[in-house]
């Protein structure tokens, strides 16, 4: 899989002129690799994900999603790679129960019940399968959103700051859940965050993005490799990186 975004501009709106958001962002996630994309808020991370997911078609880019090398046939009709997207907010359809939200994204009815059953058990939501999203707690909605992304058995899993604006205990449980789901179903992951420690805890590799326009300033592989990373390892690597981050973002990125 290869992503190369030469430039992405937002058109001029009102008094604000045209804005160059992304410039020359290129990287190649390996199959099964967990790539964290780290950068300050508003630097264009979500824009980058939307381009990869095919939601934003107005850019100069080449996104080559082929060769996410999996043996099983792609489940989508057009033989595209299946994408599981976990947005910043859960974005579950409120007029469908948890189960029906999952069923909707499955391309075929074939073995749908088994897949839904398995993934709901994995995120511990079997008892909430007939519940409407409005009645779920925040943590449960996030788990349901994770379940929806995993139920399609994605070739590419995209997560856009999925654990922001929830309490740290819930966020930690959800991070563990994500690691566990990934160990069951290895998937190429793009994970956007502005929490460096979270990126180190979960990813194989971190891409550092700068702002205005966003480009990759550093590409760091995390040691030691997943999944044998202890809290001490994470802390040590975090410390080491913080000095580096400080120098990378010295040019006033905290001015959001």
């Amino acid at each position, binding site marked *: 899989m290869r992503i190369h975004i030469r430039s992405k501009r937002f058109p001029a709106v009102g008094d604000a002129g045209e804005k160059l958001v992304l410039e020359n962002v290129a990287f190649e996630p390996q199959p099964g690799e967990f790539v964290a994309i780290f950068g300050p808020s508003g630097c264009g991370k979500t824009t980058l994900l*939307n381009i990869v*997911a*095919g*939601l934003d078609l107005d850019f100069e880019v080449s996104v080559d999603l082929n060769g996410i090398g999996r043996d099983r046939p792609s489940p*989508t*009709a*057009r033989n*595209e790679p*299946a*994408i*599981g*997207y976990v*947005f910043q*907010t859960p*974005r579950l*359809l*409120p*007029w*469908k129960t948890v189960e029906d939200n999952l069923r*909707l*994204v499955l*391309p075929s009815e074939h073995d749908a019940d088994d897949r839904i059953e398995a993934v709901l058990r994995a995120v511990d939501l079997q008892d909430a399968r007939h519940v*409407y999203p*409005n*009645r779920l707690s925040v943590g449960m909605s996030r788990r349901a959103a994770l379940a*929806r992304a995993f139920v*399609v058995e994605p070739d590419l899993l*995209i997560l856009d700051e999925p654990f922001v604006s929830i309490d740290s205990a819930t966020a930690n449980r959800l991070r563990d859940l994500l690691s566990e789901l990934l160990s069951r179903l290895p998937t190429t992951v793009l994970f956007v965050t502005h929490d460096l420690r979270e990126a180190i805890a979960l990813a194989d590799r971190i891409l550092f993005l700068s702002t205005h326009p966003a480009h990759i300033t550093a590409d760091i592989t995390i040691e030691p490799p997943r999944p044998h990373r202890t809290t001490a390892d994470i802390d040590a690597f975090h410390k080491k990186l913080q000095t580096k981050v400080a120098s990378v973002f010295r040019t006033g990125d905290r001015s959001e």
Partner: protein
Amino acid sequence: MLRWRPAYFPTLSVLVFLVIWQAAAEVADSTLLPGPLAVFAVMTEAALSGELLPHLAITLLRVAVSFVVAMLIGTAIGIVMGRSPAINRLFDPWLIVLLNLSALVIIILAYIWVGLTEAAVILAVAINKIPNVVVTMREGARSLDRDYLEMAESFRLGSRKTLVHVVMPQLYPFLTAAARSGLALIWKIVLVAELLGRSNGIGFQLNLYFQLFDISGILAYAFAFILVVQGIEVGVLRPLERRAHRWRR
């Protein structure tokens, strides 16, 4: 003992209306203002003699067909205009012309151009109603949540699944609003069309009673249809609405 509860208010309000009407009729004591009892007697008589039902049925059929046609076409055009600013700007002037064209003008032109046929009635009534449906559904289509559409796109739901499961549920409130105002508007227009160019239906009967100056007959037919429309509201529209809203907290 009956408690003073809002649940009784509709029944109470109808009763009060009927009592005032009956009292006014007693005071006026004129054939020009028959009371509800007299009107009800005429209605029962017409129903028992077998005269009322065929007229009611044919009017109801015309209402139903033009309602379905207007809702389908209006919804489709409304969604397209709501989603595409270019198409909206292109056809908005047409919409304004249609919205402000008198129902009577459309009916007369339809009868002249198409002939005194059922097709002309359906066409005229649908053309009268479609612009209202378009305006309501366009508003709905504009308010569609981008977040859900992005979700549908990223999971590659395809256009059919997106329309049925993501778009239409968001449009239900607008659809029921359009249906409700549509039903009321359409049956009024159907009566005018029947009066002008049909030889059966409630509108035709009203014309007959108008020539006979039979106010009881006119009111009997009018209220018979109000009862039917109210039946549709309670028996069809409300249950549908409850179903569509059961996910709300």
